[in-house]
């Protein structure tokens, strides 16, 4: 067996299981779209134009980032259900190394996040966004949040002409990589610990 093939199989299984949640996904998409087409549209009328010229376009990239996070979190929900029902004992009985299982589950979660946000990225291709400046020191805290970093990267890609972000895309990518490594390592450690308990 090729190295990593088993992890890929586990990830593939997780991706297949993703489609079983189609109604749940429909609910999630409805929520994200409600945020955009109800909340943002109404808010557009009351937000000061000098701060955010168009709140609808401002929120759109944020929705895509939030969507990716929400979809990636489905794997966490599933792991919790598996632990509750003792399904993880079955997974441990499979002829797969523990590390492959852990890597496969995390990879599955990543792929789910990417797949789910595709329609939102498509939506972003059509829409544009505007960046508002948040007051210091909240600004520093908020811009270093992984969701904000992902949002800034999208803005830099889709609406570079109207983004007033001081950060370079490379810096943002480095920050996001750091967040990803940290979260993946923490996720792997916690999942492995839960499997043992």
């Amino acid at each position, binding site marked *: 067996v090729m190295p990593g093939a088993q992890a890929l199989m586990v990830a593939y299984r997780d991706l297949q299981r993703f489609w079983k949640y189609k109604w*749940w996904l*429909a*609910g999630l998409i409805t*929520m994200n779209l409600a*945020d955009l087409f*109800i*909340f943002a549209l109404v808010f557009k009328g009351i937000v000061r134009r000098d701060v955010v010229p168009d709140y609808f376009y401002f929120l759109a990239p944020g929705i895509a980032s939030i969507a990716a996070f929400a979809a990636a979190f489905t794997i966490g929900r599933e792991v919790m259900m598996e632990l509750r029902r003792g399904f993880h004992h079955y997974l441990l009985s499979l002829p797969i190394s523990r590390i492959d299982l852990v890597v496969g589950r995390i990879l599955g979660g990543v792929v789910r996040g990417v797949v789910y946000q595709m329609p939102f990225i498509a939506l972003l291709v059509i829409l544009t966004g505007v960046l508002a400046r*948040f*007051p210091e020191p909240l600004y520093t805290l908020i811009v270093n949040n992984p969701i904000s970093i992902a949002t800034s990267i999208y803005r830099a890609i889709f609406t570079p002409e109207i983004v007033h972000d001081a950060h370079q895309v490379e810096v943002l990518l480095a920050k996001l990589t750091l967040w990803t490594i940290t979260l993946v390592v923490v996720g792997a450690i916690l999942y492995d610990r839960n499997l043992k308990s």
Partner: protein
Amino acid sequence: MREDLRALALIILWDVRKLGRYKFFLAMRFAWFLLQVLVFGLIVAHMVSIMGPQGPIDYYKFYVVGAYMAVLFSMSIMRGHEIVEELEDGLIDYQLSLPVKRRVLAIGRALGGGIASFTYSLPMLLVTVVVLGVPSIPHVILLAIIAFLFASGLVGVAMSVALWLRSGDKLDILMGVSDSLLVRLSTIFYPIVALTPIAIYYYLAKVNPVSHAVDTLRVIAVPEHASGITVSDPLVMASYIAGFTLSSILTAITLLERRIEGGYGR
């Protein structure tokens, strides 16, 4: 009769005592609420500028009441998920085997759910009262009564839907969708005047019980900032909430009596 009342009190108490099981959930909700009030609300209030019929609206005060209502809403709706979990775990079947009349069990669960949801939201209500500087104790009591009434109504709706669907997955979807639509198509985050440019949203928000509840809370908590921006007259809104609560609790009791058997549906 006396035995029935004792059984009713025990069932209600059982629902409220489950608080200990939700320590983490409640702590997270409280943290979310504090973040909304002390960080998000302040930032958004800085960004928003809206005129009411009597001058500019203090959006921060407007938002704090909305954030409380959003928490109360999600906590009350959570009771539906609890009912489905209980059906799945067989706890409802156990309760049916107890020497308690079915009607008493149904009334107890419906009332207990409302009391528990309201109790869980008390720390947030306290923060709201402090942040807004609610003028007097009678105002605080009135706030609590309206919040309790509305929470009971929402619990009734959540229980009815849960018993109708009997499936955690279906409930997740329906509640997720209705949560997003009911909250966003209400006056939780924006006054009714902000909805006027989009007619369909405006009329949906006008009939949404959430709008009536949150605007009633505003009239009580910050009367000077709520005047002229509510969905309706305060008395009409209060009657609307009372009607909503009564009808939803009666529906829940009827469904609990008739559909409580049968366990979890897959």
